């Protein structure tokens, strides 16, 4: 079957997306969960007993009357226990030194982002990596958790602070006041909003649990880093709040055996650069301080805080409040909390904890009985029963005490082992699904690879031997073998894997797909080998025709792919791309020099060459007709003449100009890890003192965008574009980023919803005009101009959307992007004639570089979530996700759209330009993804797998999904073209 190159590329990418989805499902395991979601009180195990029936079947009584949880966002361990804490948090330090507290260093797991951390603290689970993606929105927490249990038990919970909690626990609080972290630049009001309720609440007595979530510290960290002068006062403020709570509560503590508890903790730390999300020590280590008069009687010697897991808080809190431990909690009770209780009570607590962990393990591990922790727990349980028997018999000798001590030790060991083997379950990979996904991806990549010669030929067609698999024995054999493998794997494997759990019809369909692809691959390969044997010489000649630029493009692309094997190169990927485009520009400038300084001699020799050049010049002039006409209309003929007269020098200088543009963009957003701390221009601009400068810059940029982009638009969309850009400025002004020239003081800041929607309307208008033009060109087959205009309008609509959504200082990136594109098309592509594949590669490189120029990196923490809220009253999932994805990938997206516009203009010369471009784009995208999933599979036990490799995997996969969308667009435009040429 004959298939066009673009259709083939498009199908390959789409199937690859399917394979990757399967791979990801296996790679990011779902967190360890209990099947039944919420536990009920009836499932409480009784005290172990031997002979006599124990009379204690109820839950033990709560340890604490009231609990106040003070969660200080991004509270790093050394902010409490280090020098900073000693200096600024005097009250807490005093308490710690007096020995009236229990202090720990709680280790958070990556991803160190707020929502997964709150989940970990309240459910005791380790949220899977995939929860990060869900962090962008915050749906209700359906899992069993402390807050839910407390509510079920009739406790009254009051909450003030980050509204993530209200989204996670809707209707759980009797009273709440959420503050959004919408304006990250605000760090006083978010905390005042919490503190203002304190006096009132502390006076009252109608609550049992009070949760406070302070955001200010996190905001300070994001804005100025952990060493800024703002940190000290903020810590002092927090210390003051704690003092207030502590004195208020201790004045109310009437019954010394039933005191209150204050829990001070951080959800995650703060890196040296002030952000979080990774797994460096600074981000992972958070303090956990438990303050209660119950711990008063402990020896007053101060010792180093013990290291525990963040998940340990959930069971401790649950038992402290007299609630059942949540089902899927992995944590273990902190023994020091119950130390002052009687042996019987202590043993009861440990037994409850162990019982719950065993049950969870049973649900998640098939061979759970062989587990060390389970065995030890069973032994301890038996001993416990004996102990109870002795106890109930009235034995009070020393034997009982000693036995009790030994028993506690045994219980603790068992709990530790159970907790550890459960945590290990979280990072268990589903190798089978991963393999199947990887095989599909690999097959598609190889199919693309072996199609290269025929797809990039002048016909841009590929003969896909679809018939051969259906009639070959090999195909049926492979199907049978794969089916057998599937049955064997799924019946024998210990862990549950995803691919086994889907319906067998689906599984079989995928197996048949794999087998068919294998047959197609083999038959194509066989054909190629036969051909190759007959024409060996041809191959060598085609190799020598490669220019240095081809070599550079190939080596650069391959080098980048290989560099992904090192974690530092992933962290600093922007450096690789900046380096590569720099080299590319130098290579272009060298070619340009050769062209101008060497061609002269040759022109004298053969005039036919000159003639040819003139011909093509005429043709190219035609393409830029629209643009030049525009220039004329605006009476810029002087500029035009200037360009024509000095074309040589402008062309020679243009690579240099591009280089300088790129160098200027570099310090705008420092990304990566190693040089993150360097001052960047973006921060300088967005700080509140430099609002006038930013306003001027934004204004200039918007005008520049209009000037650069309006040339090829129709009149209607030009007007719409103008209004849209004006709207963008108004939006920025109402949101408080920039100032109006006539108004120096900032008035009240709003979300700017009307203005943003105003711009959205124009974006939609321009896009619809463009699509209408495209459809029109499709209907009336000869209308070439309408088509290129339509494409350009779609492109300018996207630019307008980007201008609205970008962070204000990033408009500079957008302007430089447009400028470089115009320089490339007007001077470089026009003079140095490259084929579609080469131009696609170069566009791809620039797109990648612009991805990083706009401040992205390969860590999750740089995703600009605020873009998802533009013009929306509340969080709405689908638009927010789409907008965030658009903003994040706008660099590659805009460059590939520009590529489409350019190649479409090229179609007059070579009718296969778009098809070639599409195919090259598909292969250049599928190469890194394919290699990367193999690398990641190899590195799955690497130390940095969660902090470096996994985020990059997510970025790559989402990029591939977007590229598949782009390829579909290419194919649609190309189909149009094919249909037209057939007429």
């Amino acid at each position, binding site marked *: 079957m004959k298939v066009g190159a673009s259709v083939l590329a498009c199908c390959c990418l789409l199937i690859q997306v399917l394979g990757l989805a399967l791979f990801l499902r296996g790679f990011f395991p779902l967190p360890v969960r209990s099947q039944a979601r919420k536990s009920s009180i009836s499932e409480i195990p009784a005290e172990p007993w031997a002979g006599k029936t124990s009379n204690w079947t109820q839950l033990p009584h709560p340890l604490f009357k009231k609990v106040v949880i003070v969660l200080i966002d991004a509270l790093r361990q050394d902010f409490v226990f280090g020098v900073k804490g000693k200096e600024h948090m005097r009250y807490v330090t005093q308490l710690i030194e007096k020995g009236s507290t229990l202090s720990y260093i709680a280790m958070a797991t990556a991803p160190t982002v707020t929502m997964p951390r709150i989940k970990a603290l309240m459910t005791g689970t380790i949220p899977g990596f995939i929860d990060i993606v869900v962090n962008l929105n915050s749906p209700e927490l359906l899992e069993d958790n402390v807050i839910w249990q407390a509510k079920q038990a009739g406790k009254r919970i009051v909450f003030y602070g980050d509204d993530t909690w209200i989204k996670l626990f809707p209707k759980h609080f009797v009273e709440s006041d959420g503050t959004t972290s919408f304006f990250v630049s605000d760090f006083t009001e978010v905390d005042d909003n919490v503190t203002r309720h304190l006096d009132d609440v502390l006076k009252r007595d109608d609550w049992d649990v009070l949760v406070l979530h302070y955001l200010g510290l996190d905001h300070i960290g994001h804005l100025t880093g952990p060493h800024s002068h703002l940190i000290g006062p903020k810590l002092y403020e927090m210390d003051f709040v704690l003092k207030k709570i502590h004195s208020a509560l201790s004045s109310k503590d009437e019954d010394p055996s039933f005191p209150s508890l204050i829990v001070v903790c951080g959800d995650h730390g703060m890196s040296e650069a002030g952000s979080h999300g990774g797994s460096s020590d600074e981000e992972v280590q958070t303090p956990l301080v438990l303050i209660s008069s119950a711990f008063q009687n402990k020896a007053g010697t101060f010792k180093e805080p013990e290291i525990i897991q963040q998940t340990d808080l959930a069971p401790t809190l649950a038992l402290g409040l007299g609630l059942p431990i949540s089902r899927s909690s992995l944590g273990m009770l902190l023994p020091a909390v119950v130390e002052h209780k009687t042996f019987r009570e202590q043993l009861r607590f440990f037994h409850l904890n162990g019982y719950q962990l065993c049950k969870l393990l049973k649900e998640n591990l098939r061979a759970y009985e062989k587990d060390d922790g389970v065995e030890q727990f069973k032994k301890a349980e038996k001993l416990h029963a004996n102990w109870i028997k002795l106890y109930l018999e009235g034995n009070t000798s020393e034997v009982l005490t000693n036995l009790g001590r030994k028993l506690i030790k045994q219980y603790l060991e068992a709990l530790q082992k159970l907790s550890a083997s459960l945590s290990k379950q979280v990072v268990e990979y589903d190798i089978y699904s991963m393999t199947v996904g990887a095989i599909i991806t690999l097959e598609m990549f190889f199919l693309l690879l072996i199609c290269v010669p025929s797809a990039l030929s002048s016909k841009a067609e590929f003969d896909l031997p679809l018939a051969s698999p259906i009639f070959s024995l090999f195909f049926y054999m492979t199907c049978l073998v794969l089916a057998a493998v599937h049955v064997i794997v799924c019946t024998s494997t210990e862990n549950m894997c995803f691919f086994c759990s889907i319906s067998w019809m689906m599984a079989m369909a995928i197996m048949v797909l794999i087998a068919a692809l294998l047959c197609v691959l083999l038959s194509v390969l066989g054909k190629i080998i036969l051909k190759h044997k007959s024409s060996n010489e041809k191959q060598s000649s085609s190799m020598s025709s490669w220019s240095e630029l081809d070599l550079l493009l190939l080596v650069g692309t391959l080098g980048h792919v290989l560099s992904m094997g090192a974690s530092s190169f992933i962290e600093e990927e922007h450096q690789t791309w900046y380096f590569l485009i*720099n080299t590319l520009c130098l290579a272009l400038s060298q070619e340009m020099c050769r062209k101008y300084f060497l061609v002269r001699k040759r022109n004298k020799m053969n005039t036919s060459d000159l003639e040819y050049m003139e011909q093509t010049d005429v043709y190219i002039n035609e393409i830029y007709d629209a643009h030049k006409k525009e220039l004329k209309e605006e009476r810029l003929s002087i500029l035009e003449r200037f360009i024509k007269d000095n074309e040589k020098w402008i062309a020679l200088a243009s690579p240099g100009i591009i280089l300088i543009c790129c*160098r200027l963009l*570099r310090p705008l957003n420092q990304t990566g890890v*190693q040089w993150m701390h360097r001052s960047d221009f973006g921060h300088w601009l967005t700080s509140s003192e430099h609002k006038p400068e930013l306003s001027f810059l934004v204004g200039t940029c918007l005008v520049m965008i209009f000037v650069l982009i309006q040339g090829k638009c129709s009149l209607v969309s030009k007007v719409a574009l103008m209004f849209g850009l004006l709207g963008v400025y108004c939006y920025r002004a109402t949101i408080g980023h920039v100032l109006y020239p006539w108004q120096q003081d900032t008035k009240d800041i709003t979300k700017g919803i009307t203005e943003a929607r105003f711009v959205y309307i124009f974006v939609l208008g321009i896009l619809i005009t463009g699509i209408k033009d495209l459809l029109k060109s499709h209907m009336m087959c000869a209308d070439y101009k309408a088509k290129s205009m339509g494409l350009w309008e779609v492109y300018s609509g996207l630019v307008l959307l980007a201008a609205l959504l970008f962070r204000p200082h990033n408009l500079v990136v957008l302007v430089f992007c447009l400028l470089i594109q115009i320089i490339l098309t007007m001077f470089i592509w026009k003079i140095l004639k490259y084929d579609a594949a080469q131009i696609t590669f170069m566009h791809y490189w620039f797109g990648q570089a612009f991805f990083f120029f706009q401040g992205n990196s390969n860590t999750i923490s740089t995703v600009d979530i605020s873009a998802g809220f533009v013009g929306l009253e509340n969080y709405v999932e689908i638009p927010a996700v789409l907008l965030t994805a658009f903003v994040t990938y706008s660099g590659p997206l805009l460059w590939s759209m520009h590529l489409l516009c350019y190649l479409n203009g090229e179609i007059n010369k070579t009718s296969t330009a778009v098809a070639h471009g599409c195919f090259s784009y598909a292969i250049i995208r599928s190469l890194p993804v394919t290699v990367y999933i193999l690398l990641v599979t190899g590195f799955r036990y690497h130390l940095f797998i969660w902090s470096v490799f996994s985020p990059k995997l997510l970025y790559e996969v989402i990029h591939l999904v977007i590229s598949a969308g782009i390829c579909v667009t290419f194919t649609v435009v190309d189909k149009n073209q094919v249909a037209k040429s057939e007429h």
Partner: protein
Amino acid sequence: MDETEIRRLSVGHVLCGLAVLFSLCVPPLLLDEFSLLGTHLTWLCICSVCVVTVNVLLRLTLKPNPSTKRSSFAHKVNKLKQSGLYFFVSCLLFHGIIVLYGAPLIESIWETFLFAVLLSSFTTSRCLCILGPNFHAWIRVFSKDGAMSVWDHSLQITTICSIVGAWLGAFPIPLDWDRPWQVWPISCSLGATFGYVVGLLLAPFWIYWNRKRLTYKSR
């Protein structure tokens, strides 16, 4: 393109290589506290001076491209001046390119500049000594099939090798190994030097290997 020419070329290359070796071995004997990594700037100066001196000496003794017409003393002085200017401009140009590649603009400006000087002495000084301050000849030599003598070929090879060496030398910088040689510009200058030496060694062999093809082409 006979054997003697290649032999003369090899001698020249060996001398150039010895100059680099000299800059590595002799200074530690004369200067205290000299080390390649510790006092890198001093080494950059010494190496550039050595390489340039050897290049000039070779130019005077081996006379790679003997000019047909005799030139007056004034003409020679003029050429010398021009060469000096070219060398300085090439240093600035390299400096600019390095900054474009991402070297910091203001801090460690001396490191960047001396690295540019080193690159110029590996590339431009050789060009000046072999081709003279003649821009068109340079462009001819560095374009496809433009080389017309053994010397042109050796020039092509050493220049490309040193620049590629410097280019590759930048790669270890982002790695988080915290080694002393990852500091800017040590890895790059070492890469350039290594590339230069490899180019010097490679060129005679390559030319000898391809001598038949080359004789054919240069006619």
